[in-house]
């Protein structure tokens, strides 16, 4: 029987399966960060349990680390306590840690792939919903809660009921100025924030095949924003060449062997999915979110929605609330929206290609007066690479702040936050109320749209950028 990519990985990882129970599946890689792990380690200690496979576990600090100079002390005592706690937990249980002073530190979903930990065919979990990012390599990767973190630490397995499968075929080529970020925002806009709940999504089709690994990561990253359990993309030559030479990737003959296996993973011809959707992106416009969830999105050439035009009562009320929170009037043109802040960063869009593309837009220009803009690289390695290429100069000369790596204003657990009422063009993934700071107003966009908005002081259609 022909099988899907998901089915091949799922079946390869079943440790134990009894009728009427969720399957026990093996986890190849467990990523750990400071925010969702302390309670899990405490519970382990309390029960006198050990970490079964510290060698398959990897930790970093990202969520609440400050992004100012690493030589400065952390002033927030509670953040510091959480960071130190992860250090002591890792030491006690023998888990490798890329700590604050490590040249490999970064957002967990940026460093996993960058170091070659993330590989096709693996199961990968992390106490973080954007673990779906790693699915870009043809891995089954998903976010878990703290109780499950504890379960994986103790057993290296997870009890999972089998999700359904959903294939999204993306046909056509993305026009110039339209990015992977616009594509995923458009998908969420189309299927809704619960459109993929209960499903593992496989993205396929011409537009996906043409994407670089970093673009694929952007797409898979936001799968969770459509409610998906995971997002996946079949591995291909792009995947293999990205992985070759990465520190944790197999080397020499082992690499060839791995590639031979990885080539068996793509969904077989004729494999059945529980649901399928085909979209054509040849005419897609850059996308901008106007509301307080990632499905509330429109074209940059469009206008703020009129809630009265929405037929579903729940959606209408939600849209009204959103406009009130966002301080927006129905019918206002997106391009007429003035912004106060720009954030280029997060596990969605903080990799080197994102920074290169944004730098091309701002090169030789300057940030509009009254706008404060920052770039937060996804990892220290991305930062070093960007500096080698002189991108930091381009950003700094234009008036951007250039920071150390971390989650930063994606969720504002560190000092980088919006003030109440501030409007922000952000390359992150969530525009929930207060996400970037209480009262802050987030508009989700691509890195080049954010860069152009920083220069113009308002949203502009980056397709016409000179």
């Amino acid at each position, binding site marked *: 029987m022909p099988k899907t990519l998901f089915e091949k990985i799922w079946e390869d990882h079943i440790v134990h399966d009894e009728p009427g129970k969720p399957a026990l599946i093996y986890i190849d890689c467990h990523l750990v960060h400071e925010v969702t792990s302390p309670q899990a380690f405490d519970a382990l200690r309390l029960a006198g349990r050990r970490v079964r496979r510290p060698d398959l576990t990897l930790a970093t600090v990202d969520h609440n680390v400050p992004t100012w100079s690493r030589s400065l002390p952390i002033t927030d005592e509670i953040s510091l306590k959480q960071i130190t706690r992860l250090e002591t937990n890792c030491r006690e249980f023998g888990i490798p840690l890329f700590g604050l002073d490590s040249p490999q530190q970064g957002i967990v979903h940026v460093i996993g792939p960058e170091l070659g930990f993330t590989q096709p065919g693996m199961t990968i979990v992390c106490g973080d919903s954007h673990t779906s990012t790693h699915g870009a390599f043809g891995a089954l990767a998903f976010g878990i809660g703290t109780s499950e973190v504890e379960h994986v630490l103790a057993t290296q397995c997870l009890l999972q009921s089998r999700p359904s499968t959903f294939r999204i075929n993306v046909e056509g080529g993305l026009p110039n100025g339209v990015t992977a970020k616009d594509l995923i925002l458009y998908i969420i806009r189309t299927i809704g924030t619960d459109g993929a*709940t209960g499903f593992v999504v496989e993205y396929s089709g011409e537009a996906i095949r043409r994407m670089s690994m970093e673009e694929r990561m952007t797409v898979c990253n936001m799968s969770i924003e459509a409610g998906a359990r995971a997002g996946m993309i079949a591995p291909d030559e792009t995947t293999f060449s990205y992985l070759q030479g990465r520190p944790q990737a197999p080397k020499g003959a082992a690499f060839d062997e791995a590639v031979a296996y990885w080539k068996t993973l793509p969904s077989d011809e004729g494999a059945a999915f529980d649901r399928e959707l085909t979209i054509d992106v040849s005419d897609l416009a850059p996308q901008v979110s106007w509301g307080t969830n990632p499905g509330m999105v429109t074209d940059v050439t469009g206008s703020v929605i009129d809630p009265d035009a929405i037929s579903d009562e729940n959606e209408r009320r939600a849209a009204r609330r959103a406009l009130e929170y966002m301080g927006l009037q129905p019918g206002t043109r997106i391009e007429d929206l003035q912004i106060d802040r720009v954030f280029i960063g997060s596990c969605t869009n903080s990799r080197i290609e994102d920074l290169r593309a944004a730098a091309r837009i701002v090169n030789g220009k300057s940030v509009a007066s009254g706008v404060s803009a920052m770039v937060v690289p996804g990892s220290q390695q991305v930062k070093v690479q960007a500096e080698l290429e002189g991108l930091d100069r381009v950003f700094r000369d234009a008036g951007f702040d250039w920071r150390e790596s971390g989650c930063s204003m994606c*969720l504002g657990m560190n000092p980088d936050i919006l003030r109440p009422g501030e409007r922000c063009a952000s390359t992150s993934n969530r525009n929930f109320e207060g996400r970037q700071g209480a009262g802050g107003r987030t508009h989700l966009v691509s890195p080049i749209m954010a860069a152009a908005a920083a220069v113009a002081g308002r949203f502009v259609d980056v397709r016409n950028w000179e």
Partner: protein
Amino acid sequence: MKPFIKHEGLVAALDRVNVDTDQIIPKQFLKRIERTGFADCLFFDWRFLADGTPNPEFELNQSRYIGASILLAGANFGCGSSREHAPWALNDYGFRAIIAPSFADIFFNNCFKNGMLPIRLSEVEVRDLFRRVAENEGYRLTVDLSEQMITGDDGVELHFDIDPFRKQCLLEGLDDIGLTLQVEDRISAYESHRRNFGAA
């Protein structure tokens, strides 16, 4: 884990869709390293005004909902981040069961790990319950997990579905890790032949 068998309590209505975990517990409270003590953080930005006083506009601040232990909400409840702090905060505040037309996956799963029962009912049934709550101050329901029934003094009787394994775990307060370790030999057997992904 504490078992969930049968629960009777006051119902609070939060008639909003897509209530995300950033609202249930805002990020500033995720820095704590304990598992409890989140009651005051629940719905913080909705519940309190900038000066720290309760926001009279927020549903749960209505005096009629003080002491509620069953939460009635709109579709896609708990979307967003995987933070288990969300069910912890709901639990600490006093909620034992949550009724909605749909839930986000990770949140749904996290509830069961904490002895809480998320219940999916149809959109029509949930609408009907919202109406009953609105019309009757002090509206209470009984949730009976073994019978999979929700009942009220006004005669409402609703059946709900639940995965049999999850039901058993809740009824008996079973610890997942303990269960998994019962088949430890299978894990070892799997490990002895599993694919090696490591650097060679």
